[in-house]
C-alpha cells in the first residue's frame, strides 16, 4: 500500500474514453475532488470529429441536417435513449464547456451551432457530423463550395489514398485532383508508417519545409489543399497556418483510419488539461474491486499489488465503455457488466445479437445492449430502482443507443457525463 492510501475523493471516474474525460472535466470544474482511473480509452481511435446526432431512424438511413430536431425525434421514438434524460439546454451547455476547455488546450473546434456539417472521409464518402477540428474545417467549406481542390496523400501512409477519395467523389465534385507525394526523407524506407510517426516528424521545421516545397509544385490551380490528418501532433494550428502562408492557399486535414492523430491530440489535450485542473489520474490501471463501506461511501481497489491503491469515494461515474473498452464482456451465453455485475439490458440469446448482414440498415441488436438508468443516470436493478444512490453511468455503456449508426457517439458521451455530474451534485 502506498502512503496516501486510502485516497479520499468526491467522485471516482472509471474510464478514460470521451465519457470519462468529459465526466472528469465537468466534475473538477464544479469543485469536486476527482480521481480518474482506466486504460487509455477508445478516444485515441476517435476520428476527431464530434458527432451529436445524425441518423434516425437508422433502418431508414435518414440523415438529419438539424441535430436538435434529430434528438427530439429519437427521444420521441426511443424513450430509453440516453438523450431522453437530458434537456436541450444541458446538451448545449455540455458541448460549450468541452469545446471551450479544448480551445484553451490548443484544440480549436468549429461548428454551425444549429446544424450538422459534412466532411469527407477516407473512403471518399461524405460524413455528417457536428463539431469539426479547426484543422478540418477548411474541408467542410471546400466541400460546400466544391472549390478547385488538390488532395494529396503520402506514399507510405497505407490507409489513405488521395486517388481513392478523388475517384469516389468525382461525380459530385469535379474540380478535385489527387497526388501521391513522398513524405519528406522516407524515400529509402520500404515500410508503411502510422499517422503518429508522420505527425511527430512534421513537428520539425525542416520536414515541414520539404513538404511545403513539394506541395507547391503540385498545387497548380488548386484553391485549397486537403491532406491526411497528420499535420503535427502538438502544434497543428500553427503548422497549418505556416503551410497556408507559404503555399498561399487554405490547407485542411482529412480524418484517417486508426492510428488517428486527431484522436491522440484529443487524448493529450484532456490528459494535460485535466491534470492541470487537479484531477488525479491512475492511467493504465483498472478497478479490480469495489465495495460499500458505509451507506454513503464506496471503496475501490485499483491495480494489482504492489502498485495497488485504495480509494474512498462518495460517488462513482462508470464510463468504462462497451466491449472494446471492457466495460461489457460477453461469453457464449450472456453479456455482463465487468465491475459491478450490473444488470445489462440485452437480447435474449446470442442468436439475436447480430443481424445477418454486417451493414444491415437496422443495425445489430447487441449494439442497443447496455446499462439502463433513471433520469439521473443511475443504473437500475431488476425492479427498476437505482442500485446505489451515487453510482452513475455515462457514455457508450448506456443501453438503447447505437452510436455507430445514429452518429451520436461523442454526443452521448459528453452529454451523459454532464447529466451524471449534475445529478451527483444535486444528490449531495
Amino acid at each position: 500500500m502506498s502512503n496516501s492510501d486510502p485516497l479520499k475523493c468526491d467522485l471516482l471516474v472509471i474510464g478514460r474514453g470521451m465519457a470519462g474525460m468529459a465526466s472528469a472535466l465537468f466534475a473538477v470544474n464544479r469543485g469536486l475532488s476527482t480521481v480518474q482511473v482506466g486504460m487509455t480509452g477508445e478516444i485515441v481511435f476517435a476520428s476527431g470529429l464530434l458527432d451529436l446526432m445524425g441518423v434516425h431512424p437508422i433502418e431508414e438511413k435518414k440523415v438529419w441536417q438539424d441535430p436538435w430536431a434529430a434528438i427530439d425525434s429519437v427521444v420521441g421514438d426511443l424513450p430509453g435513449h440516453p438523450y431522453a434524460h437530458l434537456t436541450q439546454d444541458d446538451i448545449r451547455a455540455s458541448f460549450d464547456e468541452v469545446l471551450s476547455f479544448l480551445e484553451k488546450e490548443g484544440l480549436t473546434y468549429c461548428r454551425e451551432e444549429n446544424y450538422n456539417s459534412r466532411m469527407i472521409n477516407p473512403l471518399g464518402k461524405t460524413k455528417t457530423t457536428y463539431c469539426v477540428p479547426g484543422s478540418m474545417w477548411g474541408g467542410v467549406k471546400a466541400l460546400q463550395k466544391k472549390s478547385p481542390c488538390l488532395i494529396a496523400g503520402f506514399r507510405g501512409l497505407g490507409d489513405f489514398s488521395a486517388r481513392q477519395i478523388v475517384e469516389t467523389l468525382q461525380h459530385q465534385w469535379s474540380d478535385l485532383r489527387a497526388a501521391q507525394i513522398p513524405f519528406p526523407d522516407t524515400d529509402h524506407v520500404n515500410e508503411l508508417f502510422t499517422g503518429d510517426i508522420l505527425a511527430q516528424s512534421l513537428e520539425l521545421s525542416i520536414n515541414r519545409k520539404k513538404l511545403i516545397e513539394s506541395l507547391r509544385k503540385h498545387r497548380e490551380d488548386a484553391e485549397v489543399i486537403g491532406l491526411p490528418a497528420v499535420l503535427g501532433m502538438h502544434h497543428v494550428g500553427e503548422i497549418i497556418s505556416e503551410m497556408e502562408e507559404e503555399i498561399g492557399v487554405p490547407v485542411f486535414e482529412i480524418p484517417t483510419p486508426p492510428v488517428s492523430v486527431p484522436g491522440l491530440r484529443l487524448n493529450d489535450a484532456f490528459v494535460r488539461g485535466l491534470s492541470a485542473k487537479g484531477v488525479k489520474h491512475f492511467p493504465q490501471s483498472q478497478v479490480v474491486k469495489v465495495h460499500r463501506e458505509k451507506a454513503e461511501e464506496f471503496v475501490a481497489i485499483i491495480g494489482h499489488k504492489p502498485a495497488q491503491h485504495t480509494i474512498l469515494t462518495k460517488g462513482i461515474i462508470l464510463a468504462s465503455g462497451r466491449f472494446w473498452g471492457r466495460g461489457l464482456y460477453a461469453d457464449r451465453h450472456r453479456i455482463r457488466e465487468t465491475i459491478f455485475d450490473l444488470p445489462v439490458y440485452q437480447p435474449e440469446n446470442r442468436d439475436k445479437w447480430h443481424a445477418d448482414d454486417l451493414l444491415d440498415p437496422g443495425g445489430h441488436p447487441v449494439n442497443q445492449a447496455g446499462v439502463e438508468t433513471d433520469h439521473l443516470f443511475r443504473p437500475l436493478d431488476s425492479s427498476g430502482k437505482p442500485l446505489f444512490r451515487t453510482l452513475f453511468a455515462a457514455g457508450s455503456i448506456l443501453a438503447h443507443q447505437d452510436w455507430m449508426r445514429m452518429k451520436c457517439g461523442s454526443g452521448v458521451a459528453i452529454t451523459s457525463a454532464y447529466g451524471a455530474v449534475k445529478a451527483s451534485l444535486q444528490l449531495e
Partner: protein
Amino acid sequence: MSDLETQVLIIGGGATGTGLARDLALRGVQCILVEMEDINAGASGGNHGLLHSGARYVSNDPISAQECRLEANLLRQLAPECIEDTGGLFVAVEGDDENYIADFPLLCSKYGIPVQEISRDEAFEREPGISEKLIAAYLTEDGAIDPFKLSLENLAQAQSLGSTFLQHVKVIGFEMGKNRIEAVHVLNAESGQERLIKIDQVVNASGAWAAEIAALANIPINILYSKGSLLVSAYRLSQRVINRLRPPSDGDILVPGGTVSILGTTSVRVDLLDDVRPTIPEVDLIVDELGEVVPGLREARYVRAYSGVRPLIQSQEAGDDRAVSRGFAVFDHTHDGLENFTTITGGKLTTYRLMAEKVADLVCEKLGVSSPCLTLTEPFPSAKKGKWTEPGLSSRVWLKEHASRKPILCECEMIPENVIDDIVGNIRKENITPSLKAVAARSRMGKGLCQGTVCGTRVTSYLYEQGIFHSDQGLANIKEFLDERWKGERTILWGEQLIQTGFKEALYCGLLDLEL
C-alpha cells in the same frame, strides 16, 4: 461473340472438376471447365481439410475407408505441397462406447489401415491439451490437406496443357439432339452475357448441384443435402488431427492447418443450396462436443465459422437415411438415353483423384481415346498458383526477403504489396476482374484475427493507387469483401472476437459511414 467449342465440357470448379480437367488434359483431351462462382465455391471450399486415413469409416463404410487409405498415400507422394503430414490421434474419453473402442483396432487391421495404440502418458506427451478423462488413444495416418491449393494446382496444370477455365459462368440449359446433348447454354454472371458451347461430351461434376444440372436434361437424380459446419480457431490447438474414437457423429474432429485449427462438424438436412450458413446452435454444439476431448476449446478464440453441403446420393429403392451412401457415384446417362452425358458426385476430397480417374476412363472410352490415366504416377508440377493460400507462408517469405521487403498490407497474415501484385497479376491472367473478394479467395487476406478490418481499407487504397480500382468501385468492393467475412463471423462473436468486431464496426460504420 463467337461461339465456343470443346471436346469435353466439365461443369463445376471444385476438387472433382479441376481434378478431372487435369486428368483429361494429361491424356491429351482438351476441355472447358465452367464454374458459376469462384474456384472451390462449393463443398471443396467448405470442408474440413482432413486427408482421411480411412480410420473414421472402418465401422460404417469400409469401401470408403479403403479408398481413403489408398488415395491418401498416393497424394502424399504426388502432391506433398498440398499436404501437412500431421498424423492422427483417435481418442476416447470416459463415457464413450467401450465396444466401439474394442472393435476399432480389429476393424482397422481388417481393412489394412495402420493404427497403433499408445499409453495415456504418451498421448498427453504428444497432445498436452487432451482431456484427463482419456481412456484410449491410437495413432493413425490422418493428415491435413489444403483444398484451395489442390484445386488451383490441378487447374493450373490443365490450363498449361491447353484447357480453358471460365469463372462466374453458369450452365443454364442444354441444346438436345437425338440421344445426345449438342451444346450447352451458359450465362456469364458478371456480364449477363449468354453463350452456347458446342461439345462432344458433358461431365456434370457439380457436387451438391448435380441433381439440378441433371434436371436440365430431364434426368432425375435423388440427392439429399446435408449441411456441415466448421469453426476456425485463432491459433493452432493441436499438433495432430484429433478424432473422437466413437461412431462418426457431430463435433468429432479437430484438424490443424498451418497456424490455425479447424473444428467440426455437424450434419443438418437442408432443402436449398443457396445461402448455406452456419448457425449458432451448430457452433455451440461443436465447441461443447469437442470440448469434451480437448477442454481448452471451450475457452479458445475463434475467428470464423463456415459451412459446406454434402450431397448424399439416395439409391432408387430405399427411402431412408441409412441407405444413403457417403461414397461417390458415377452415372453414365447413356442408360437414361443420353450417350454423351455423365454425372459424378459425392465422395470426399481425399478421393477426388480416384473419382476423376473413373469418370475420365468413361469419357475417354466414349471419345475413343485410349491413353491411360497419368494422375496415378505423375507428380504435381507445382505451378505455385495456389501458394498464397497457405497459412503462414506469406510471413515466412517476407521474413526471408530482408532486403527487398515491401510494405505489409495485411498485418494479421503479413501480406506485403508484392504478394498482392502477384495475385492481381494471376487474376488478370485468368481473365477475371480483380476484386477484393477474388484477392482474398487466393490468399490469406482477411483471414486473421482482425477479419478484414485493417486490410479492407488498406488493400483498397493500394489498388486505387495502382490504378486497378476506378470511380467508386472501392465502396462496392469493400462491402462485398466485408459481407463475405461477416458470413463467417456472425456465429462466433463472443469474448475477444466480439471486441474485435466492435472495432471493425466502429471503423466502417462509425467513421466511414459505409452502411449509409
